[in-house]
């Protein structure tokens, strides 16, 4: 019984999501290997070898894997899976894109977005936008799983796994990378931040998000948004928190000008402390907020900034 964890990375840095995934995997009490698929990704392999509780790092380093497209990476993972009983990846857009393809190639189900490990074959996962938690038993001999990283702490980084190259190359003639537009921000990533301040439609426009950014700077916080704010073009899509955006669980989540639709709550209701700032005292967000302030955000935000 052994576990293959797929590393989340950008060819240079191992992403923190991998650490949460390894921690989830470690609850199965089986030897863990990490697979790094990429191009010129040796630095990632070294970072992965330091993750606590990992025995081996397999590195498939080839130009064919540069953008980690699903068509060939899934074939590689499915091939390597013959030596493992579990294939586990973070529930990021990369994991969500690739792993179901692996599961289908292996003719097994995928258990998506687990939030708890009950036993070797039984897992808990949210359904219906987190309004119910399903306990699911896998009947397959091989288990393909994605992990909701916000539900697991990060593994440590005091390990010393051996690094083994993997020379298997699957070409991909079906799909081709064209371009990428990645958000650059000095702030922490949403899924790794301990404090998040998010704005909704109530922010009025994109410029007004600078009011949130000033508060975020004081708190070392990440800035998020509701779907309405993203749809209205105030901010880019990678800032969306919710059922279909990012799922976060920081120590502190401050919702500003967000009504609190179930789809938004699905992405943030597991935060430790929730603050809601909204001028409508009936807004549903107040039903889950530890601290609510009924007020105009345009008055609150500058004052908040000055008091921090």
């Amino acid at each position, binding site marked *: 019984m052994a576990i293959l964890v797929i590393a989340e990375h*950008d060819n240079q840095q191992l992403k923190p999501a991998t650490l949460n995934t390894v921690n989830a995997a470690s609850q199965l009490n089986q030897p863990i290997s990490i697979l790094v698929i990429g191009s010129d990704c040796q630095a990632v392999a070294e970072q992965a070898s330091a993750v606590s509780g990992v025995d081996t790092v397999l590195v498939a380093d080839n130009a064919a894997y540069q*953008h980690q497209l*699903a*068509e060939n990476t899934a074939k590689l993972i499915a091939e390597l899976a013959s030596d493992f009983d579990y294939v586990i990846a973070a529930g*990021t*857009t990369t994991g*969500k*894109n690739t792993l*179901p*393809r692996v*599961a*289908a*190639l292996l003719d*097994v189900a*995928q*258990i*998506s*977005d687990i939030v708890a490990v009950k036993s070797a074959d039984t897992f808990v996962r949210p*359904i*219906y936008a987190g*309004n*119910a*938690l*399903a306990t*699911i*038993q*896998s*009947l397959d001999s091989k288990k393909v799983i994605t992990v909701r990283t916000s539900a697991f702490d990060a593994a440590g980084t005091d390990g010393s796994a051996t690094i083994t190259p993997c020379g298997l190359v699957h070409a991909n*003639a*079906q*799909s*081709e*990378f*064209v*371009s*990428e*537009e990645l958000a650059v921000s000095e702030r922490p990533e949403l899924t790794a931040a301990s*404090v998040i301040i998010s704005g909704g439609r109530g922010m009025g426009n994109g410029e007004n998000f600078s009011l949130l950014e000033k508060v975020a700077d004081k708190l070392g916080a990440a800035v998020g948004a509701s779907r309405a704010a993203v749809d209205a073009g105030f901010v*880019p*899509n*990678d800032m969306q928190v919710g*059922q*279909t955006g990012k799922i976060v669980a920081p*120590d502190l989540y401050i919702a500003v000008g967000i009504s609190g639709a179930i789809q938004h709550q699905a992405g943030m*209701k597991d935060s*430790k*402390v929730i603050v809601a700032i909204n001028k409508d*005292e009936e807004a549903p967000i*107040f*039903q889950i*907020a*530890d*601290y*609510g*302030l*009924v*007020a105009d955000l345009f008055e609150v935000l500058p*004052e908040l900034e000055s*008091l*921090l």
Partner: protein
Amino acid sequence: MKVLVTVKRVIDYNVKIRVKPDGSDVDLTNVKMAVNPFCEIAVEEAVRLKEKGIASEIVVVSVGGSEAQEQLRTALALGADRAILVESTANTESLNVAKLLAKVVEQEQPSLVIMGKQAIDSDNNQTGQMLAALCDMPQATFASEVSVADNSVTVTREIDGGLQTLSLQLPAIVTTDLRLNEPRYASLPNIMKAKCKPLATVTPDDLGVTLSAHTQLLGVNPPPQRSAGVKVKSVAELVDKLKNEAKVI
């Protein structure tokens, strides 16, 4: 070119579900059902391709009980040309749905398959990727822009760090994200017309697929409930509470 679109019948997105008291499943009795929002976006995208003269025929497919005909009729009213119901209520987990859809794809030979990225009941986010694997087709998930050229489709995808653009050879599978388009409403005349459009029903047997269970649902629980906390009167009080009571800043 032929475009195949999948639609799933799910709970209406505005409805807050309840777990059955015996914890066996969620309670769907008398709950309003609808087309999965991401599938509506998929239908809309196909209709726009037809309006641009790129798509020649739109076939919608659903896997489910006979009541899913309702959602297929909705898709027909939005502009699809004909519908296929794969009537199956047992073992409709994603892998099995993908296996049934793979047979339909084999029969229909579409150039493009458009699906939702996720069904808002299971929140699985996997059927499209599985279908792509079974048909050995390229995939572009979480699409926010789709443009079709001769033998390829260029898709902008919403990924965690921002946006990524891929070019796929046709036939290909695309799954929709929310910002791909805003679906239209069906007009009354189109709803009437949809009643006469062809809707075929097939069974897994007809398709030659035998399904087995890969997972078992052991139970469903309500999530831990959060209760409303306190209302603070001022920003100063809020900052004080966060510092000294919650100790999070």
